[in-house]
């Protein structure tokens, strides 16, 4: 899918690669600082999302930077942005796991992401999957079904769905999330039986 055309970003992946290479050559921490700075916002929001606390997130960002210093020379990095995201997310999850004092964030709240569904070239197979999908969609609880239908098939945004159904924004999000998961489980089950 294509991302909304708005490519104004501080660094491009090429810049990242260049900075990573130059840092590895020189060991100049300021280069790494520049590199990290460009992604700091992303790292911060990710921390925020998992830790749910501004102060903790700030600390976590700095810890992630230290981790970056430690790891950047040890790992092969294909795309720095994605790599840093995974690093950050893992760091936050580790923190959540170790910090017993932290408020519990139930795993249900976390979004699950499916592996990209393999592209079936075969038209028949595709047809089969579509019917399976329809069948599964019918099996979903009403609220999930409605939300998923509006979001994925009619391409409405959360806000519109909330207005149309009367659910709250958070309900809409969780219905879509859970509906998606149930759909996937259903699809896998039906695929397994065939």
């Amino acid at each position, binding site marked *: *899918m*294509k*991302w*909304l055309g*708005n*490519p*104004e*970003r501080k660094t491009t*992946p090429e810049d990242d690669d260049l900075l990573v290479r130059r840092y590895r050559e020189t060991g100049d*921490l*300021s280069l*790494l*600082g520049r590199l*990290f*700075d460009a992604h*700091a*916002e*992303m790292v*911060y*929001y*990710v*921390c*925020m*999302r*998992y830790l*749910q606390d*501004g102060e903790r*997130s*700030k600390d976590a*960002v*700095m810890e992630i*930077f230290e981790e970056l210093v430690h790891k950047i020379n040890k790992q092969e990095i294909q*795309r720095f*942005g*994605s790599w840093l*995201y995974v690093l950050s*997310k893992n760091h936050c999850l580790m923190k959540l796991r170790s910090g017993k004092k932290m408020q519990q964030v139930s795993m249900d709240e976390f*979004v699950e*992401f499916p592996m*990209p569904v393999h592209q079936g070239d075969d038209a028949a197979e595709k047809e089969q999957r579509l019917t399976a999908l329809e069948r599964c969609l019918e099996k979903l609880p009403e609220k999930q079904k409605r939300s998923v239908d509006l*979001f*994925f098939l009619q*391409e*409405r*945004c*959360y*806000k*519109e769905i909330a207005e149309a159904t009367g659910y709250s924004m958070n309900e809409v999000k969780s219905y*879509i999330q859970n509906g*998606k998961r149930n759909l996937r489980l259903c699809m896998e089950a039906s695929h397994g039986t065939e």
Partner: protein
Amino acid sequence: MERNKVDIEQVKRYVRGELSPREMHALERRAQDDPMLMDIVLGMELAEQGVHAANLADIRARIGRRTGGGRVRRLSTAQRWAVAASVLLAVTVSTVWFLRDDVQAPNELAVAPPVADERPIPSAAPERSEEAAQEPSAAEAPARAASRGDAQGATAGGQPRAAAADRLAVATEPQRETEAADETRVEAYAPQPKRLQEAEMARVAADEPTLKAEVREGLAANAAGVQVAERLSGQAAGITIRGTSASRMRPIKGKVLDSETQRPLPGAVLRLAGDTTVTTDAEGVFTISGQADLRDVALLGYELDAVQIAGKDTIVLAMAPIDLSLDEVVVVGYGRAKRQKASEPEPAVGWRAYNRYLKGGMRQADGPKGTVTLAFTVDGKGRPTDIRVLSSTNEALNDPAIRLVQQGADWLPGKNGERTAELKMRF
């Protein structure tokens, strides 16, 4: 596919609700497949954008400090220290010069030469030779020493401020003093009289060479002061005036003694400024660099009693024993520790005696040879009961073995209350 390009500005607009439903859906749809985008959206929704902006500014500052800016920061700390040090030095120099200037006054009156005339040093040379007769070291040295003595002389003259000069001591060796003529460095250690510090620094602003010449002139006129200076040198240093940097670094030696027995105390730990420590050697002697500031002395069982300054650069620290001691600990070695598995019952008489008993018993039952392993339970009275044969190489030995244990000493249960034991007997 530009999947990992997350446009944070777009997300911000989304969170602010500035996007059209189409754009919102596009972003939401994309977030369904892009965990990074999803996390960013969810993270951003958790607080006001102003809060995020403040947090991000803080993070940027921290990164800056951690990477490039950190070095600048550290340097500036060093600079601050340098400034502090130079201010201290300036205050000290001016204080001391002011003092000298002050006590100088009567001599100036006596000699009464205008400043311009004082400048040429050779004019003072013949007078200095008088002092040279008194102290056979380099010609310049007495001159310096005399400067202190001069101060003393002035004290006798009744100058109130010069009383402070009592605390002055010359702590330099003559050969070093020869260098001092070129450059005078003044350093202050410890207790300076307050009223000296409040002295008008402006008065001291006079240029150095002139003052030096003045001092020399003055000294030469008052040769008697030399002895006073020598007497003074043994006293506790309040202000120490030293020669060049070479003498500045001269180490200070000291000794730590037991104040009761006067015996040296090895192993005493001296804590210096900056968290460095020095430990006394077997003779109780320590050496610290001249610059170091002694903070504390510690030795187990002692506390600091008195500090004596002995000589120019030697300190004696007397420590008094204190009545603090640890309880005695008796360490006993066990010869047969291996046999005694702590968790198993053991004979009340000990293994040694019990083994002797068994050996005696087994000899009595002479005849067949073999090994019998018994298992039994120690009852509440310590008697072995429920004796069973676990293994035996000679059936005929079973009964004698059981009888031996039955008739033998009492048993103590194991440390954790274990009551079952095994015993291997070799006949």
